[in-house]
C-alpha cells in the first residue's frame, strides 16, 4: 500500500452544545478513493471541513504527511447573482497557467461552456466546472462534498467516471462524501459509514453487508423508497443529447 497522506486521530467536534463528531479516526493514502457515507446530520460535511482545515476540531489531531494541496469541491457554491461571471473567469482566478485551464476544460468536456455565465449552468455542468476548478490546484487530495447532487442519475455515473479518470491522470487521492451508496461504490476503494462516529469501515462489498450499515439504511430499498427501472433504448452524452448505441458501463438495468 502507498504512503499515508492524512492521518486523523480521535477527531471530535461539537458546536452550540451539540456533539457532531465523536472520536473519528481515519486515514487516507496516496491515490486512494475513500467515500464517506451516512445519513443527514451525520457530520460528513463537518469532517471534510475539518480535514481541509476550514474548521478546527474540538479535540483530536490531524497529521498530514506533508503540506498537502487540496482541491475542494464544496457542497454548494454561494454565487451572488450580482456578480457577472463566465465559466472561463471562474476557472482562471488564482490560476496562472491558462494552458492548464484549457487542458482541464477539454478533459472534463466543458470547453463549449467557456463563455457561459456560471449562473446559467445546469446541475451537471456546474459540478464539472467545480471539479475543473478543484483539479486546477494540482491537488494531492481531491475533496468532494456530495459531487453528484443536482445531477440526474445517468449524469452521476458519467461524473463518477470523470472523477475516476481525473484521479488516474492527476495521481491524486479522492475523499468524497455521498449519501448515495450504490453508485459511489463502483469506483471507491474504501467506504466509511459515519453517523457522528464511524459505524463501520471497509471495502464496498463488506460494508453493504455489515450489520451496522444495514441498521442505518436497511436492507436495500427501504419501504418508503423503490427502484424505478428505466427502459431506455438510448443514452445521453455529456451535453444531454440523445446518442444511439450501447449503454454506458454505469447502466445496470435489464435492457
Amino acid at each position: 500500500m502507498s504512503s499515508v497522506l492524512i492521518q486523523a486521530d480521535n477527531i471530535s467536534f461539537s458546536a452550540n452544545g451539540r456533539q457532531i463528531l465523536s472520536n473519528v479516526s481515519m486515514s487516507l493514502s496516496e491515490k486512494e478513493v475513500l467515500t464517506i457515507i451516512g445519513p443527514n446530520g451525520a457530520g460528513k460535511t463537518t469532517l471534510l471541513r475539518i480535514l481541509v482545515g476550514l474548521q478546527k476540531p474540538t479535540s483530536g489531531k490531524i497529521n498530514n504527511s506533508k503540506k498537502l494541496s487540496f482541491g475542494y469541491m464544496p457542497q454548494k457554491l454561494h454565487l451572488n447573482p450580482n456578480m457577472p461571471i463566465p465559466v472561463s473567469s471562474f476557472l482562471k482566478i488564482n490560476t496562472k497557467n491558462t494552458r492548464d485551464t484549457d487542458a482541464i476544460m477539454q478533459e472534463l468536456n466543458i470547453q463549449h461552456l467557456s463563455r457561459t455565465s456560471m449562473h446559467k449552468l445546469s446541475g451537471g455542468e456546474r459540478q464539472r466546472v467545480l471539479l475543473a476548478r478543484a483539479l486546477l490546484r494540482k491537488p494531492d487530495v481531491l475533496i468532494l462534498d456530495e459531487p453528484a447532487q443536482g445531477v440526474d442519475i445517468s449524469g452521476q455515473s458519467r461524473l463518477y467516471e470523470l472523477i475516476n479518470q481525473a484521479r488516474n491522470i492527476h495521481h491524486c487521492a479522492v475523499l468524497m462524501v455521498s449519501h448515495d451508496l450504490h453508485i459511489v461504490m463502483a469506483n471507491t476503494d474504501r467506504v466509511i459509514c459515519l453517523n457522528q462516529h464511524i459505524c463501520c469501515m471497509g471495502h464496498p462489498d463488506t460494508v453493504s453487508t455489515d450489520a451496522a450499515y444495514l441498521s442505518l439504511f436497511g436492507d436495500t430499498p427501504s419501504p418508503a423508497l423503490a427502484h424505478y427501472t428505466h427502459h431506455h433504448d438510448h443514452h445521453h452524452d455529456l451535453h444531454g443529447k440523445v446518442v444511439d448505441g450501447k449503454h454506458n458501463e454505469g447502466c445496470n438495468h435489464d435492457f
Partner: protein
Amino acid sequence: MIFELMLPSLIAGLFIALSSGSLGCFVIWRRMAFFSDTLAHSAILGTALALIAEIQVIYGLIGFGILVALTMAKFDNGRRHVSSDTLLAIIAQSSLALGMLLLPLTGTQVNIEALLFGDILAISWQDVFITAAITTVIVILLAFNWSDLLALCIDEDLAATEGIATKRLKLLLFLLLVALVAIAVQMLGVLLISSLLLIPAAAARRLSHTPTQMLCIAPVLGMIAVICGLALAYFLNLAAGPAVVVTSTMIWLLCLIKKSD
C-alpha cells in the same frame, strides 16, 4: 454659485466616484450594503467625538470607523456573509442618535444638514489632496489583492482551501470602506454615502459580463453621475449631494432597460 467654488468639489467628487465605484462592486458581491450603511451612519458619532477631542474630523472618522469595523469583523461568523442585520441596525441608529446628542456639547457650531446630506462648498483644496491620496491607496490595494478578493467574493470556503487569507482580506475590505466614508462624508453626508457605493455598481452589473468589466464600468458611471449631478446643482441651484445621487439613480434606471444576461 461661482464655478471656481465648485472646482475642488468636482475634482474630489471624481476621486470619490473612482474609489466608491470600485469598492461598491465588492460591497454588492459580498452583500455588505447594510454594513457600509452602518459605517456611514456611525460617522456622525465619529465627527462628534473628533470635535469633542478637538482633533481633525477626518481622524475622528477614521478612528471611530476602525472601531466599528473591528466590532463587525468580530461578529462576522464566516460561513454566512452578513453579520446580524439587527446588530448592524442597532449600531447604525444608536451611533446616529448618540452623535446628534453629543454635537451640541462640542461647543462648535455644526451644520447638521451638511453632515446628513453633504456640503460641497465646504470642500477645500486640502480636502481634495486628502481625497486623492486616500483614493490612490484604495485603488492600489484593490488592484494588488484583486484576484484574492474576487475568489473571496465567489466563495469564501473555496478561497480558504486555496490558501487565501480570507480573514485578512475581509478586514481589508472593512478598512477600505472606513477610509471611503471618511473622504465621502463631506460631499454626500452620512445618509447618502451608500448610494454612490451601490447605485453605480448595480448599474454596471447590467452592462458587464465579467467581474473585471463591472469593476471598470462602475467608477465610470459614478464619475458621470458626479459630473452631471454637479452640473445640475450648478445651473439649477440644487443641493449638490442629492443631485449626484438622483443622477446616478437615473443612470441605473437607464441601465435597467438593457436586458440582463
